[in-house]
């Protein structure tokens, strides 16, 4: 990462403890403006916890997070979202009894103004706002590839793939500058993952979005990210270009266990 390139998000020494368990330990980390970076690591490494700290769901025990130069450490989630950080969840969290389009409209909550009295008396500007927001929600749903026939279906009744799409649309509708995706390809087949990879690049190019991706599928990670950070047991054990990280022995060990890592190393040495 070149120094003149501005970072949209910076985390310094972020630590999170749950009672005795240190889920994230002194992690520093930056996302360059307009880039796609990945956070990987075995299950329970602390990736989701790190996301929750960035989005304000958890207060970090120590450390500082800044979004485009502004300190957002332990800020309120809704305020952080209003600043331009949107996310999806590892296990989809749509509002089940709302339709797809209503879900996406909630995503625009922070971009709307109607309050209690505006909602009750519904003056022309509120009417206009509702129409704009609904139109934009429909447009965003189309953009993520949801047929207009299902826009008015309840979120629970959508297929798994469509639910993932709606969740991304809900995040996008808030016009974020940084998008956080928590294992978006979970439960997808190779082909779907492949198309999601292309979709992320398209997002970046269309909107100038920066994207932080938590991902298990190495093909997706290698295919899309410019920078990879690896967590294990809450600690950052490696970071850098995807290729370099992939061959880092510590990373291999974290993923495969010590024995397997040694066996591979021996094999490689034998081959040389």
């Amino acid at each position: 990462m070149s120094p003149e390139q501005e970072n949209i998000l910076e985390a310094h020494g972020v630590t999170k403890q749950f009672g005795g368990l240190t889920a994230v330990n002194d992690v520093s980390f930056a996302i360059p403006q307009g880039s796609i970076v990945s956070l990987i690591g075995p299950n329970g490494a602390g990736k989701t916890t790190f996301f929750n700290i960035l989005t304000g769901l958890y207060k970090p025990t120590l450390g500082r997070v800044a979004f485009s130069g502004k300190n957002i450490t332990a800020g309120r989630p809704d305020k952080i979202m209003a600043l331009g950080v949107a996310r999806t969840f590892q296990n989809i969290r749509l509002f089940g009894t709302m339709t797809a389009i209503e879900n996406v409209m909630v995503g625009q909550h922070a971009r709307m103004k109607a309050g209690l009295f505006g909602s009750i008396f519904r003056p022309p500007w509120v009417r206009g706002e509702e129409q704009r927001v609904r139109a934009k929600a429909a447009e965003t749903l189309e953009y993520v590839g949801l047929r207009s026939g299902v826009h008015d279906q309840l979120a629970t009744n959508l297929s798994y793939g469509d639910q993932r799409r709606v969740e991304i649309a809900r995040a996008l509708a808030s016009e974020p500058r940084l998008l956080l995706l928590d294992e978006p390809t979970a439960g997808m087949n190779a082909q779907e993952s492949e198309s999601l990879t292309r979709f992320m690049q398209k997002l970046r190019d269309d909107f100038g979005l920066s994207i932080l991706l938590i991902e298990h599928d190495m093909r997706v990670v290698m295919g899309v990210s410019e920078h990879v950070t690896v967590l294990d047991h809450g600690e950052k054990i490696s970071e850098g270009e995807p290729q370099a990280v992939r061959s880092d022995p510590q990373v291999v060990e974290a993923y495969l266990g010590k024995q397997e890592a040694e066996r591979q190393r021996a094999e490689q040495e034998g081959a040389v």
Partner: protein
Amino acid sequence: MAAASLPAAQPAPLRAVRRFLSSYGLILVLLAMPVAFGIQDLRTEGDLSRLANNLLDGLSNGSVWALVAIGYTLVYGIVELINFAHGEVFMIGSFVAAGFFGTIGLTAATGGAGLVLGLLLTLVLAMLASGVLNTMIERVAYRPLRNAPKLAPLITAVGFSFILQNVGLLWRGGSQQSIIDLVKSQKELFNVFGVSVTNGDALAVCVTIPLVLLMTAFIAKSRLGKAMRATAQDPDAARLMGINVDTTISATFMIGGMLAGAAGLIYALYQTTVWYFQGFTAGLIAFTAAVMGGIGNIRGAVLGGLIIGFIQQLSDNRIGTQWTPAIVFAYLVMIMVFKPSGLLGEETREAG
């Protein structure tokens, strides 16, 4: 790293105050009344014997609340449900006991061995009745809703509480009914330094302590107790380990109900009155006790019960019985504000 020591969003003094309040706020709140009245007593009477008497009466009241509170805590620990009907289960226990006195011919004149035997028999019966009732409620009103949104079983619990109140109303009418004072509950047994220990106090303590010890041992040692703890920790994992979760939950309701039944008997003997509405207030007081101790924690429930008993007695004795419910509820609200995890409760995930 320098960045790590940067202050977070909240200014430091405020954080310190907040941390202090969340650790000691509840204890301060709890100490306020006794300390204030203690000072008042020292000023006006020169000693603390009135406070000590309050404490003793409070502890015997409190042992009843402790027994009821354990039922809340056990059930909450295992199914995360406030068993709203638990207070009514306690009330039915009282009614069964009071009705049974006559059936087996206990009178105020019965003495010695006959009384002990009769009361033991009544104890067993009240415990069984309340235990079976509680298990049945679980089966009918909670089990069908185990996968429903959380509010659903809470609403059926409220519903059942009303049904049982109505049963009580039909059974013994709408007003307080006095029952025979079998143990001469207000008679002084002995007196130490001006603190008068009555028969009722002795009875409350003599029934509660063995029951609590027995139950703690049961949960710690027995297979069923282990199954209960495993299910409370993680029902799915428990199921995988071959534990029959349904049976375990039923057993938990059974035990909780039995303790409430025992409490019902003590209450009847101690207060010498019963009425259909006693369960509502008792239920809320005992629930307050359970939350105060840290819900899910048995020792906490006992501790909370005793403390609430003391607070209740102070209020009854010094402010007026008509204000006691309001004061207990105010404590409940304060606990929720300062420390929802209670005195001995583990920090819940939210608090992490």
